């Protein structure tokens, strides 16, 4: 690996880490409060101020971070100390590294150097995401077990059964998409969506609905938040966590939301592509700036479009969170095993027939 590639990789990692943990995690914390306030006709987060400026409640995220850093790190009596500390680490790491295979732009040639806007262009990108996201289950289960608390244990158990169930269904919902694009590489899948009519959402919108439901369940957010149902289990598996360890679970949840949105954009919404315009046409539109600058402009537009789609899907997830009541636990398991699983198997059959009869033109 040359110096140029190394610098490129470091810049890309910095960009993604900055985007997820530095920008989206605090912003989502703010959106979660502000959107709920707007939707429930309240005024909402507006108290934290800096010399009298409240900046529509944006400072609350900062104030929370400072407050929680200086909070006591509580470990209850009888808890497994090592596992109790390890659990939030195991929860937060998969959420951060899952984003590595999601392309946030295309391939561009800048001053003779080819830039591929994805941290790791794996041939098995889709499998990598599923593998990594299943690791998050360990953090939750260990947290539930190590706390020596009945609420935590019940939360951890519920979480494990729920995440197992929806992981299966989530894997099966994207099979149809892979049959369609004939690739497991995220970069290939995005590259094949340069034509608007090849976007996953056009033919595979039932898969998208199922996938989003599974992904939200996998992330344990409302309406699937039975593992941390505050009315039944106090806070579920992180009842006994405080300070930064609590923040880690909570950050992991928000970053997983961003990862889910990124996955949906890459698989169903054409990644960085603008509808009806290919990358070459986009760069060609700025050809009066010279080949390098026009590629740079096309790259920036591509990243901007990706982030725009990401934000749209995050708002969709937030709206789901504040519109739905929580499902009962037996309803969650019923939905996973008796509805989404058979439906996704049926969808594989439909896609197979569609491709073989030529009704569904594969790119």
């Amino acid at each position, binding site marked *: 690996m040359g110096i140029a590639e190394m610098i490129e990789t470091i810049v890309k990692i910095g960009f993604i880490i900055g985007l997820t943990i530095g920008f989206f995690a605090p912003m989502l914390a703010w959106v979660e409060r502000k959107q709920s306030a707007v939707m429930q006709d309240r005024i909402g987060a507006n108290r934290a101020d800096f010399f009298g400026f409240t900046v529509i409640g944006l400072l609350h995220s900062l104030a929370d971070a400072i407050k929680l850093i200086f*909070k006591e790190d509580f470990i209850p009596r009888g808890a497994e100390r090592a596992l109790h500390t390890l659990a939030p680490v195991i929860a937060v790491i998969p959420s951060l*590294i899952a984003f590595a295979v999601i392309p946030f732009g295309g391939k561009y040639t800048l001053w003779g150097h080819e830039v591929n806007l994805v941290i790791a262009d794996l041939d098995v990108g889709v499998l990598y995401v599923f593998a990594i996201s299943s690791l998050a289950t360990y953090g939750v289960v260990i947290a539930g077990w190590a706390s020596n608390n009945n609420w935590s244990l019940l939360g951890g158990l519920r979480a*494990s*059964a729920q995440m197992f169930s929806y992981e*299966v269904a989530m894997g*099966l919902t994207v099979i149809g998409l892979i049959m369609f694009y004939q690739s497991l590489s995220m970069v290939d899948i995005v590259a094949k969506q340069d034509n608007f009519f090849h976007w996953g959402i056009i033919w595979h919108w039932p898969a998208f609905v199922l996938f989003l439901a599974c992904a939200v369940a996998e992330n344990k957010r409302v309406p699937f938040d039975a593992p941390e149902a505050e009315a039944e289990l106090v806070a579920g598996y992180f009842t006994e966590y405080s300070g930064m360890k609590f923040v880690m679970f909570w950050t992991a949840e928000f970053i997983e939301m961003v990862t889910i949105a990124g996955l949906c954009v890459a698989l169903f919404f054409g990644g960085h592509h603008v509808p009806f315009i290919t990358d070459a046409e986009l760069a060609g539109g700025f050809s009066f700036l010279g080949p390098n600058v026009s590629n740079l402009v096309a790259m920036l537009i591509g990243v901007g479009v990706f982030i725009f789609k990401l934000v749209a899907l995050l708002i969709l997830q937030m709206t789901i969170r504040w519109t739905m009541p929580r499902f009962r636990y037996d309803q969650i398991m019923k939905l996973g095993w*008796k509805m989404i699983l058979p439906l996704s198997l049926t969808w594989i059959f439909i896609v*197979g027939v569609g491709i073989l009869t030529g009704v569904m033109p594969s790119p």
Partner: protein
Amino acid sequence: MFAVAVGIAGTMIGLSEFLGPRHVFREKMEPFECGENPIVSPKQRFSVRFYLVAMLFIVFDIEAVFLFPWAVIFQSLGLFGFVEMMIFILLLAAGLVYVWKKGALEWE
């Protein structure tokens, strides 16, 4: 990427370890149970259903693992590969129907 993620997680643990106050007294260190003294230990038996779900998960996850490579080369396999895989899925669907009828998916 992994190193950066571990670094961030480590920093967060470290920050709370060193910056937080620490006041230890017996009543506070009890596991939280809405103010009551814990009367049952959480380290006891729990419902076997969770175990059943884990077993079902393994069966269907392995099915999904077989489906992934098949899906990639599905178009070059053509009709033959499709029929073969549908038979495989039907066999597993029969298994799903069986556990469904047996009531393993019921939560009351």
